[in-house]
């Protein structure tokens, strides 16, 4: 009976596999990406396309060069490409995006041994690399304009968080920053990275992932909750120098980070308790950087710092064993 398969039990399997999971995350990012394209136009489409294609190409070339199986059909490189694009300003030149993609795939993932072995979130590694290498381009934010009104020259300006940081440095008060209608960052009519501008679109995507059981609610709730509570306490103490929690929740990369970056499987804790600890840590560090740090936004840094602590968190939050003696 040579055509019979023999393996260890179990002999049935849930239909979900890695490509399926990666695709679900890509689908969940589509609303956010569409908002970015709507407000930033053709440049946004270019960034997304270059990023995704470059990531897939670089991974395929690397795996071929290393003589290992080419696994780009697991969609993980494509997902990294999309996540990276969502984290970049729409005005990024194509070659910068390509460099970022190469850094994400090679130094964020492949040098550690490929999928499953990297300690840091690849898209964020690339983003921070680009931020430090090309600070001007990475902090030049095109202003949002509805799709059909875009012209060839994009007007750039500060993001809400950028304006906040400037106000604190120059005037030591947040009220000096131009006031904004919170509906704008909630819906997306605001400056920022091309994928982070619409809190609503990202929340919808995040809810899709939670309902599909791709991610659990623990990390986003812990992350967002900690930011809300921490900034809330500070705002209560002095609303002149601390912005309101609602402001902090909808601006910057928080929604993108809480639902899509801090929930990356490979670089986050494996147990539920660990995920909560991770979310809380990210929230604390994000607020600290936003309020007291040199950079206006702290989400990317906070996630990378917490990534470094994941092995420790895993050790400390092991599940309770059945029948364990006291």
């Amino acid at each position, binding site marked *: 009976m040579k055509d*019979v398969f023999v393996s260890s039990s179990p*002999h049935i399997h849930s239909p979900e596999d890695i490509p399926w999971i990666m695709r679900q995350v890509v689908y969940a990012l589509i609303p956010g990406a569409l908002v970015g394209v709507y407000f930033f136009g053709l440049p946004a489409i270019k960034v997304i396309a270059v990023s995704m294609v470059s990531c897939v190409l670089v991974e395929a070339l690397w795996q071929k060069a290393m003589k290992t199986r080419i696994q780009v059909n697991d969609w993980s490189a494509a997902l990294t490409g999309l996540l990276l694009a969502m984290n970049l300003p729409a005005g990024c030149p194509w070659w910068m995006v390509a460099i970022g993609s190469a850094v994400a795939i090679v130094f964020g993932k492949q040098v550690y041994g490929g999928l499953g072995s990297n300690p840091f979130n690849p898209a964020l590694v690339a983003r921070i690399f680009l931020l430090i290498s090309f600070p001007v381009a990475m902090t030049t934010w095109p202003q949002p304009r509805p799709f059909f009104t875009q012209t060839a020259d994009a007007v750039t300006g500060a993001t809400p968080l950028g304006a906040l940081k400037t106000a604190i440095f120059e005037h030591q008060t947040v009220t000096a920053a131009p006031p904004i209608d919170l509906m704008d960052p909630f819906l997306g009519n605001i400056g920022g990275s091309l994928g982070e501008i619409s809190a609503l679109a990202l929340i919808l995507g995040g809810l899709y992932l939670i309902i599909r059981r791709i991610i659990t609610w623990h990390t986003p709730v812990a992350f967002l909750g900690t930011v809300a509570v921490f900034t809330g306490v500070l705002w209560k103490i002095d609303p002149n120098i601390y912005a309101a929690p609602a402001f902090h929740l909808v601006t910057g990369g928080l929604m993108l980070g809480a639902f899509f970056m801090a929930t990356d499987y490979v670089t986050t804790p494996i147990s539920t308790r660990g995920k909560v600890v991770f979310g809380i840590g990210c929230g604390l560090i994000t607020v600290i950087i936003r309020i007291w740090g040199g950079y206006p936004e702290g989400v990317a840094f906070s996630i990378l710092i917490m990534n470094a602590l994941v092995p420790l968190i895993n050790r400390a939050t092991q599940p309770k064993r059945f029948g364990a003696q006291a």
Partner: protein
Amino acid sequence: MSAFKGGVHPPEEKALVRDKAIETFPLSPLYHVLVQQHLGAPARPIVKAGDQVKKGQVLTEPMGFVSVPVHAPTSGRVRDVGKMVHPVTGLLSPCIVIEADGNDEWADGLPLERDPFSMAKDEFLEAIRNAGIVGMGGATFPTHVKLSPPEGKSIDTLIINGVECEPYLSSDHRLMLEEPEKVIKGTKVAMRVLGLDRAVIAIEGNKPDAVRVMKEKAPREIQVSSLAVKYPQGSEKQLIKALTNREVPSGGLPMDVGTVVQNAGTAAAIWDACSSGIPLIERITSVTGRGVRDPKNIRVRVGTVVRDVIEFCGGLEGAAKIIFGGPMMGIAQFTQEIPVMKGTSGILVLTEKDTNISDYSACISCGRCVEACPMGLIPSTLSKLGERGMWEEASKIGLMDCIECGCCTYVCPARRPIVHFIKHLKALSRAAASKKKGA
């Protein structure tokens, strides 16, 4: 709030045979009775080629307390005491081959007629042992040993396991539906042996007709409990936790928390042995799966060759795997030249679509396995240690607590054969331990 942590919900697939009444498999010309059909010390054949045997005649002598004999499934002549592939190990194992003479004549005195409730506890245990009764849920642990816990272990709970949580299988379901009295009377015998005045029969809620029938027939002292469906609720430790909220300690047994669990089929066999002296020579088996043309529930004698059973059920069609047991913990076979055994609760034939033969990739730490593990282990770490043969580190994080239920492997998106890695680590650990002992 679930009764036990972890677990998965694979598609039940019981519709294939759930509503099919038990058919009796006709007498075969040849029976291959494996000598080792139980967990424990081996038994010694006491017949040789040429001997005439009658149905129910004892063929082997147990060599130790944790050991039981096997019996002739029909009358005839011993052709030889040779070897056959054992479905559990896949290796050639001692096997007594009997040529049926067609008369199907019982051994002298059988079947008896006695009132089990006038027997003493020791007589029960002897009858159960002499009848070769073992756990028929698949584990095949000698029942007389389970029913005689050592001094110092006081038992206050008896659970009859009619849960049948494995997908596809319906043998216990049909047994409870068609022969509820046997299961209940067997339960009463077990209660007598353990000195209890109460017992619980646990059935999963996906068998409402069985629950109804058992509730109708059960006397007041036997409670019939319908449980929410979740795999692996039929696993002893999980069932005890679900019903009594007691956790069997790591490295321990149910009797350490005052509980004894018996499969429903075993209960029926206990009744047959005590009331009629009939040994365990046949059982109800579900022959199911989309790889066999005509799935059925059959009453089949131990020693029947699987090739004949499959033919009786319409033959193979697109078969990719032939499994003894259920899809989650069953053992895949590489040949049809194997005999039905006491613990064969199912013969499952899966098509390629229904099984998983894909290659595996690296662990992505998604955590699904941690959520699914009913024993609170970290299967992903165990699988990574398994790739490197690091059994010592694995033992420190609960390797030996693993019940090999398969929940982790079922959910893993990287298709990693986690249970296999764990089996590998356990084998390395045992080899090192025996080397140390022998040195």
